[in-house]
Structures are given as structure tokens and as C-alpha cells.
């Protein structure tokens, strides 16, 4: 298990760097992160299932100006690792799947709080950089940026360790305490989650034509799905 955590920390650190500090190539998106964590902890497909739902849920919150959206990367680290572990122990039934998706909100909010803290520490780094430049040291700009990058990377690694550890503990210790019947009751909430994701995209893609286009496509695809299931 130790090497799995080590690999998760390395990959998580890279994904967290992509989130704010470097590149923004979307390597930090829940679909990518949850699939990676699923693969690291033994079941890529289980991680991807979590990623497909989490990918859209937080899109309604844009990283505009100084506002910090919930940490969907952290939610994916938790959900992906937990889903992979659950699939190899109690099985990833609908109830466990729903519970993991809902519990991931704790990781998303905790990660957001840590992100705020990092940016406050960066104020100190930026001030020190400016003071060094005032003293004639131009190279301090490079040192300041490196310090910021290291802070973002280390924080990402620590968050990955904490969230993936929490995912493993939840799947190994918490979920098995509830029997299949109890978990089955939890599954009643599952249909709301992908619809929440679709609503998230719908609300941030608003134009004059969004509503008719969205609901007509939804009806057409729903009809096709139902027909396919009836005829299959």
C-alpha cells in the first residue's frame, strides 16, 4: 500500500500544480484525477465513474478574480481512491457510490480553505521578493516564484496524502459498517448528482438559446435511451 500512496502523492502534486500555479492544462480536472487515483489504488474504471459525475458538479463556480472555487481536485482524489478500494472490498454498489460522492464535498471545502491559506502565505513571499529587488537583487524574482511553486506543490502533495488516506479509511472502515440494505437506501439520492452536474454546465453556459437547446437535447437523448432499453 505504501508505494500506492507514494505514487498518488507524486501524481497529486503534479495535478495540484496544474490547478493554479502552472500551465492550467486541465490535468487537475476530476475526470483525470479520479481516474488516476482509481488506477493507483487498483481500479481505474471505479475511479473514472466518480470522475464522470464530479467533473461537472463544481463548474458553476468560476475562478474569477480573487474568488477561489471548491477544490474539485481534492474531491476527486478522495472519491477516486475510495471508489477503487471499495470496489475491491464491499463492492462499489449504488449506495456506496452515492455516499462517496456526497462525502467528497468535505474534501472540496477543506481543500478550498487550504488554498486560501497558501495564497496568504504567498503574500509574504511576494513582499520579501519586492524588498530584495529594492535592495538590488534581481534574481530574487526567480527565487520568489520558485518558493511559490514549491509551496503549491508541497501543499498539493499533503492534500493528496490526506484525501487519499481518508478515502481508503472510509472505504475500509466506515462503509462496511452499514449493511447492503442501508447502503441501498442511500442510493435513492444518486440520480440527483449527475443532474446537479448538468445544471452546473447549464447555468454557466447561459445564452438566449441555452434553455431550448439544453432541454430539447435532453428529451431527445432520454427518448433514445429509453427506446434502446425497451428494444434491447
Amino acid at each position, binding site marked *: 500500500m505504501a508505494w500506492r500512496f507514494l505514487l498518488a502523492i507524486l501524481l497529486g502534486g503534479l495535478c495540484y500544480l496544474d490547478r493554479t*500555479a*502552472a500551465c*492550467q492544462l*486541465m*490535468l487537475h*480536472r476530476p*475526470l*483525470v484525477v479520479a481516474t488516476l487515483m482509481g488506477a493507483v489504488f487498483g481500479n481505474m*474504471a471505479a475511479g*473514472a465513474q466518480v*470522475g464522470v459525475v464530479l*467533473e*461537472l458538479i463544481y463548474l*458553476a*463556480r*468560476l475562478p*474569477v*478574480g*480573487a474568488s477561489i472555487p471548491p477544490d474539485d481536485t481534492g474531491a476527486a482524489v478522495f472519491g477516486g481512491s475510495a471508489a477503487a478500494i471499495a470496489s475491491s472490498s464491499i463492492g462499489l454498489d449504488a449506495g456506496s457510490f452515492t*455516499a462517496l*460522492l*456526497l*462525502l*467528497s464535498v468535505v474534501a472540496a471545502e477543506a481543500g478550498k480553505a487550504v488554498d486560501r491559506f497558501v*495564497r*496568504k502565505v504567498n*503574500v509574504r513571499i*511576494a513582499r520579501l521578493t519586492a524588498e530584495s529587488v*529594492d535592495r538590488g537583487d*534581481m534574481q530574487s*524574482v*526567480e527565487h520568489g*516564484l520558485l518558493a*511559490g*511553486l514549491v509551496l503549491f506543490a508541497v501543499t498539493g502533495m499533503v492534500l493528496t496524502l490526506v484525501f487519499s488516506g481518508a478515502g481508503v479509511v472510509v472505504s475500509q472502515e466506515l462503509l462496511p459498517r*452499514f449493511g447492503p440494505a*442501508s447502503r441501498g*437506501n*442511500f442510493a*435513492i439520492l444518486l*440520480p440527483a*448528482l449527475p*443532474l*446537479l452536474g448538468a*445544471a*452546473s454546465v447549464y*447555468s454557466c*453556459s447561459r*445564452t438566449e438559446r*441555452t434553455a431550448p437547446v*439544453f432541454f430539447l*437535447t*435532453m*428529451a*431527445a*437523448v*432520454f427518448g433514445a*435511451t*429509453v427506446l434502446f*432499453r425497451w428494444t434491447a
Partner: protein
Amino acid sequence: MTMPALAPRSRSAVWRRQFLLQGCWNYEGMQNVGFAYAILPALRDFYANRPDEALKAVKRHLEFFNTQPAMGALILGASVRLEERVASGEADPRAIGTFKVGLMGSLGAIGDSFFWGALRPMASVAGALLALLHPLLGIAALLLLYNGVHLTLRRRGFAAGMEGPEGAVGWLKQAALNVRTDDRKLLAAILAGAYAGVFAGRFFVQGGGVPHALASLLLAAAAVHLFAVLFRKAVSPSEILSFLLLVGVLILWR
């Protein structure tokens, strides 16, 4: 005064360094350290034998700066060109600050709307749909759809900026990002409708005839509408998920 030259190696360094614009993002100067870091190789070329002026130039770029990171490439390119003019005595140093402040807000708004409000949702929902077929297919679609446009706009924006502020403004007009934003938003809405339809069909129709299917569709559409209304009223996804988690705990308690 002769025009100081920007070495090709320094131009490449500035291009690479723009990807770390947010490397030291902070609440006070926001992207200031990242911007100064990115433009540093150019400043070293322009003020090669003038350390005092080089320091003044670095301080200029440690002022507050914040824009959408991909759009920062355009401002960075144009700032390099302006610094070149300042170094050769053709322009006033204050013009750089005025130019950056004048452009970062409007480009930030355009970039936020295009990248975060249109391109990313479109790529995300396309990736999520294709991941239902195979996870790696979904990831590839998400990364290619987003980065194909993202990296192209960064490259073209930087090149246009390097032609000077006039080139930057000309490129902005030509790029017509507002039209592209609406197109991507519409495509995102279509794909999100398909996503909602797939999941509504999977979860809701467990048996029954046409009336049952129609009721399921209406229920799913009403749920999407309710969530969208809540988002418009500034309720966050985390608050909705927390409420659902509470409902789940109550169900378990029962």
C-alpha cells in the same frame, strides 16, 4: 539610442515562463511575481549594461497584476515590445503600467467568460460523455478539446503581442472571442443536455410504459431547473451536496 535586441533564446524563455504566471499567486499583488518572472529574460537583454534601469524595470512589473492566465500571454508579449521601446528611449516607462492596467481587466473578463465559462464546460462535458465509453477516451477528449484551443490562443496572442500594443488590439478584434464564447456555450449546453438525458434514462426508467417515462423525464428536467435556479441565487454546489448528504444521513438514521 540604438534599439536593444531581444535574443531568440530570451523570447523562447519568456514564452515558456508565461505558463508560470500564477506560480506565486497571492492576495496582494496577485500575478505580479509571475509576470515579473516571465518578462525577466527580456529585461536582462534590453538592459544588459544598465543594472539600475533593469531594477527599475523589474519593479515596474512587480506592481499589482491579474488577468485570465491564458490571456496574460497577449499582455506579456506586448509588454516585452513596450519595454524594448522604453529601453531604446522611444517610449515613456509609465506607458507600460498604463497599458497593463488598461488591458488586464477587460482581457480578464473576456478570458474568464471564454475559457472558464464556455471552453472548459464544453470540454468537460464532452470528456464526461466519452468517458462512459472508456475512461481514457474521455480524458483524451477533455485534454485535446481544451488544450487545442487554449495553447493555440496562447501562441497567437503572444505572437500578436510581440508585434506591439497595436498588434495586440488588432488580434483581439480578429479573434472575435465573444462570438466564439457564444458558440462554445451553445455546444456545452447541447452536450450537457445529452449528459442529463443519458443519466435520466439510466436512473429513472426502471419499468413502466410511456406515461412513466414521460413523468421521469419531467421530473429530471424539473430537478435540473431547480438546481440552476439555486445556482443563480448564489447557492454553491457544496451547499447542495451538503444538504443531500444530510438527507442521506437522515435516511440511514430512520
